[in-house]
């Protein structure tokens, strides 16, 4: 019975992945594909932020800064040294991760609100550096003509090809994060979120674990940044301001703290909603703000304190129960 269930589960997962790869191939609308690529990138951002903010409970409002560090590292290396994209991606990841460690070591000694302010300040500082270090980053004009990625001899340029790459990157990150939070390290992070003192008493090296989680999240944000840079082909400091950090944090909170699938769903919602509001033009931000408030207030309702994914689990359990009942009937 159990074997059958897990087999079913795997078939379902593979079918889902196949659908995710196959369906966009028939979509001819470049705009839809573009939104899908953004969903992939924002999902990476949201789920990596979820590791540090959701799972470990250390709220960071500077996640966009790490995305920016990754994007600029990748773009500059590609522009000045002409290295292939996978190398740029790796270096962006390393650079963002190292910055994460350097910022994390002092910053993660702070608690709650102080950490929030510190990360807000860090994000602003990164923005100011990107804006004012004109000789390297060309300031507000941004970097243009970033090389499109070449993978296995194929130059990625159509919307679908990009979606293929972004989706693959997202799936790798997603599986990685899901495995991390189920590992011993992930359980340590959960313990830290519940009660730091208790976790420390149990022999968890709280500060070290926090820094590792922060560095991991930053490194993954860096890869998202690299993807973004080589997708947009043009980046400017305006893409990495604090507003984006807020959006990523909203995704995490909306999807449920520590819930990876929830983050992805929330990333979809918060990417598609603003796109749908585009027709409203100048009212767009007003409505976005209202939605943000309503979504947070809506979370206080019982069905939703349990977050998006519990509803999903409940549905899944009902379905499994029905399957089981049928199995018994046979």
């Amino acid at each position, binding site marked *: 019975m159990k074997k059958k269930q897990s087999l079913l589960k795997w078939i379902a997962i593979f079918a889902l992945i196949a659908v995710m790869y196959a369906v966009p191939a028939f979509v001819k609308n470049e705009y839809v594909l573009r939104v899908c690529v953004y969903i992939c990138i924002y999902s990476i951002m949201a789920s990596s932020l979820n590791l540090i903010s959701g799972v470990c409970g250390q709220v960071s409002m500077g996640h966009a800064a790490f995305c920016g560090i990754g994007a600029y590292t990748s773009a500059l290396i590609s522009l000045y040294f002409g290295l292939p994209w996978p190398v740029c991606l790796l270096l962006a990841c390393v650079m963002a991760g190292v910055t994460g460690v350097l910022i994390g070591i002092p910053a993660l000694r702070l608690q709650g609100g*102080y950490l929030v302010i510190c990360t807000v*300040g860090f994000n602003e500082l990164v923005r100011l550096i990107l804006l004012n270090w004109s000789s390297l980053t060309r300031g507000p004009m941004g970097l243009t003509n970033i090389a499109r990625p070449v993978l296995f001899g194929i130059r990625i340029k159509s919307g679908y090809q990009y979606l293929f790459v972004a989706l693959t990157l997202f799936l790798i990150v997603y599986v990685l994060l899901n495995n991390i939070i189920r590992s011993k390290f992930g359980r340590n992070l959960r313990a830290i979120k519940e009660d730091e003192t208790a976790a420390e008493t149990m022999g968890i090296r709280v500060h070290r674990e926090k820094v590792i989680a922060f560095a991991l999240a930053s490194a993954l944000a860096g890869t998202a940044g690299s993807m973004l840079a080589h997708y947009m082909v043009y980046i400017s400091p305006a893409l990495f301001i604090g507003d984006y950090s807020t959006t990523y944090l909203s995704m995490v909170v909306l999807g449920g703290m520590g819930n990876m699938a929830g983050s992805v769903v929330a990333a979809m919602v918060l990417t598609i909603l603003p796109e749908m509001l585009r027709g409203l033009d100048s009212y767009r931000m*007003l409505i976005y703000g209202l939605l943000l408030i309503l979504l947070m207030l809506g979370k206080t309702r019982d069905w939703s304190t349990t977050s998006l994914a519990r509803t999903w689990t409940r549905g899944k359990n009902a379905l499994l129960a029905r399957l089981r009942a049928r199995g018994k009937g046979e």
Partner: protein
Amino acid sequence: MSNFLAYTINGLVLGSTYALTAIGYSMVYSILELVNFTHSTIYMVGAYLFYILAVLAGFPLWLAFICTIMLTGFVGIAYERITIRPLRIRKQPKFAMLICTIGTSIVLQNIFFLTMGSETRQYPTLFEGMYIQVLGFNVTVIQIVIIVATAVLLSIFLLFINKTKLGMAMRSCSQDTEATELMGISVDGVISLTFFIGSAHAAVAGVMGCMSYRSVDISIGNAIGTKTFASTVLGGIGALYGGVVGGLLIGLTEVYTAAYIGSNFRNIPAFVILILVLFLKPNGLFGLKQIKKV
């Protein structure tokens, strides 16, 4: 030397607006442990409400000023009621509140953007063109008025916090909300009052800041936001009046940097101070040390 004194006066004027705004941050943080991102927008709301009342509706300046303070205070109460209280009562995590305050700030900013437009407007001011000479340099009367008004307001505020029953209720809320509730004090009421006072101070700061610059536009809230953050942190965010000293220091540093290093760098010191204080002395100059209880 006279230049230095002129810079100091400018710094004090700037610092006064930071200090008045910072009070709202530290009050809310000390009671709710919430970083209130709406607060810098309230500064802008105050400035615009005064503009609307004084210029567009043609109220006399003193009446417009009083109305502005009251209205902004009520805006503060309203957004706390609508967006923060439901989350607090249901014991939602702080991050939900945090995002709510960001959402409120986006909403308020866009309401004013849609109704008032994004252009910079000329702001009404008092004592236009009047100045007195002190030690060979000119101080405009409005600058003196701002510094004196700030000093008076802050003294009243400190007296209120330290000497009145309501002030005592506030201090007790900032120490322990639950125990305060058990003593028969309405915590909801105290929090409403906190938002009223914080917003009113921000409104005064907004009006006076715009008077000294003689202009107002939508982005002034964003511009002041991170700097008042820095002031609050420097003074100690949990301390009710730490932000005052922090605000004055940040204002002075900013003006000195602009004067002696270069005006391109005027926005940098606030952040450097912010990060340094957080790393070296996160409780700020006057903050109480947090004791972790098991």
